[in-house]
């Protein structure tokens, strides 16, 4: 491999996370993994993300747990404070609700409340996303809650390369990081550098340059966005696409620079629009770029309701390419 050609391989997000965990555990004996069903006796995780880890690193470092989310996060917090780097799985994001005290009142706050004596270098992994008819309690995006909570970082990767790179960084980060695995992003194979190294948290990725409109999104919604952008390109709207990657702290610099250049910004996410992550971005951008925008900052997100079961309703619930195209065109026509 020469220094300028990067050897690529097709893998999906699941494989990328698995590779990151393997690499991190191999390199650093302090890295631990815990969660329900995550060891190989239990199938290496319900979708197989942690497959092979317990066989390779033993069930002392890779522990399946009871169905006890508070105990899972609690054990991770204590181990982290004692010098380990636990990666704790909460099977689905809706189940973070039973561990909110541990996450919010403890993991996120112990460094501050102890005046810096305690550190809690842990990763919380969790999966979510609509599209599989799992209905109201298995598909919510609550990243806005955690972004609103001081002391915990929130990451939502899209590509397998980002999964690998962001996981490597998150595991070595000295503070708690929540990584939200967003539905399809685990399963869609993409070209990925064989030796993908760490990618810094807090940096967005400008996926595609453009001039008429900046479009910010992340997670599995990026697939929808890319479809819409292709259509928009054909319709003569040049879109600069930014994959935010880290929701908190988010990359203001990159977003502001792009929005200033294009004069227009649209934020698209799967989380509810109401009091959602897009609100913070819109509120910040309207302030920082007051008078410099050609259009208001647009936001698209889920409607104000639970995730519905029927496929037809689930499709209506999710932001689809036509809605993005329409909103992008509306904004592009302004100013």
């Amino acid at each position: 491999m020469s220094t300028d050609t990067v050897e690529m391989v097709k893998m999906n997000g699941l494989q990328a996370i698995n590779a990151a965990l393997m690499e991190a555990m191999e390199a650093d004996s302090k890295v631990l993994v815990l969660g329900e069903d995550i060891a190989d006796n239990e199938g290496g995780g319900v979708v197989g993300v942690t497959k092979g880890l317990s066989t390779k690193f033993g069930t002392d470092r890779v522990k399946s747990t009871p169905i006890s989310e508070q105990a899972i996060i609690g054990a991770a917090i204590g181990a982290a404070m004692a010098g380990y780097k636990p990666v704790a799985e909460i099977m689905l994001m809706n189940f973070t609700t039973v561990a909110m005290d541990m996450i919010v009142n403890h993991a996120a706050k112990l460094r501050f409340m102890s005046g810096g004596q305690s550190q809690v270098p842990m990763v919380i992994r969790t999966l979510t996303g609509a599209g599989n008819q799992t209905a109201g309690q298995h598909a919510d995006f609550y990243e806005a809650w955690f972004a609103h909570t001081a002391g915990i970082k929130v990451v939502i990767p899209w590509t397998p390369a980002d999964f690998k790179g962001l996981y490597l960084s998150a595991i070595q980060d000295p503070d708690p990081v929540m990584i939200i695995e967003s539905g399809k992003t685990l399963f869609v194979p993409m070209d990925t550098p064989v030796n993908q190294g760490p990618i810094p948290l807090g940096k967005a990725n400008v996926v595609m340059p453009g001039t008429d409109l900046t479009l910010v999104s992340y997670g599995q919604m990026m697939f929808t966005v890319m479809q819409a952008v292709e259509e928009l390109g054909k319709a003569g709207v040049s879109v600069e696409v930014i994959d935010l990657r880290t929701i908190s702290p988010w990359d203001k610099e990159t977003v502001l620079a792009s929005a200033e250049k294009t004069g227009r910004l649209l934020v698209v996410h799967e989380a509810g629009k109401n009091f959602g992550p897009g609100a913070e971005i819109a509120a910040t951008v309207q302030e920082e770029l007051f008078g410099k925008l050609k259009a208001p900052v647009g936001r698209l997100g889920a409607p104000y309701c639970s995730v519905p079961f029927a496929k037809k309703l689930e499709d209506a619930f999710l932001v689809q390419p036509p809605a993005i195209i329409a909103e992008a065109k509306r904004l592009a026509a302004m100013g």
Partner: protein
Amino acid sequence: MSQTLQNRASPDAATQLDIYRRMIRIERNDDATRTQIRRGRITAPYYSARGQECIPAGISSLLNDDDKICTIYRGIQDMVAKNMPLRPLWAEICGRVDGTCKGKGGPMHLTHPETGVMVTTGIVGSSMPIANGFAWASLLDGTKQVTVAYFGDGASNIGAFHEALNLASVWKLPVIFVCANNGFAEHTRYENGTAVDQISKRAIGYGMPGYTVDGNDPLDVYAHAHAAIERARAGEGPTLLECKTFRFMGHVFGDADGYMTKEEKAEAMAKDPLPLFRQKLIDDGVATAEQLDALTAEIEAEVNDAIEYAMSCEFPSDDELRRDVFAEEIPA
């Protein structure tokens, strides 16, 4: 340390037949569901309770329509046992507007208040605290209604279990906590998640009776449920029933079963309560093979009718996203 029941009630012949009917209705419905999924006619996640039929069948034979149940994702057996009509059930799992939840809830959130199916939850442990609320309401109403909270063995390790059982006992609520201990929580074996050999022993910590029940024996389920329901109706408070059983079909439809041995599965399936109970009914002269076959045929017809009905129903309109968020519709 786990308790032994003193006065064992036995179901009369008619009740035994009623229990069997409920078991068959569960089993035929489950079989049909898996068939429809295999054929691609249903796309929902499905958690079969094949093997666990005795538990809700035995319990429901003692419940009235206005007694209530709160159950879980693996809960269709509890609803079918509670005599929930199959047409709205099937329409729901097919995502149709004529489904009992208008297609919004799906199999994991089936609800049917008329037959007492109050809550179906996908969050492990959550059936129990809510069941307490219904039971509190029954006390206030002065009725003798009871509420059954169904859950699994894995759920007995989550905080909500503990809080709910303690509160129910302090408040002497008419609740029956029914744990279907099928030996696995998803892929995790009982003993790798649960620190006590019998979940019923946890009842000691809540000052309530706790029994370990043979969940493959309808008569054992009946006897224990009878005691628990009597106690609840008498205002004496809750009971914990741990019913030992097995899930024949793994955790979720499509499950690879790699976490158990072929032998243990075969051994468990040899104890399939359905043929055993059928044979017992025949042996005991409760019913003839022909009568039982006719019953099965009748139930199959009911299930098939429900399926075809469901498939003919409309899908919900997108406006449904603005309805039932609040009592008042959200403006477009």
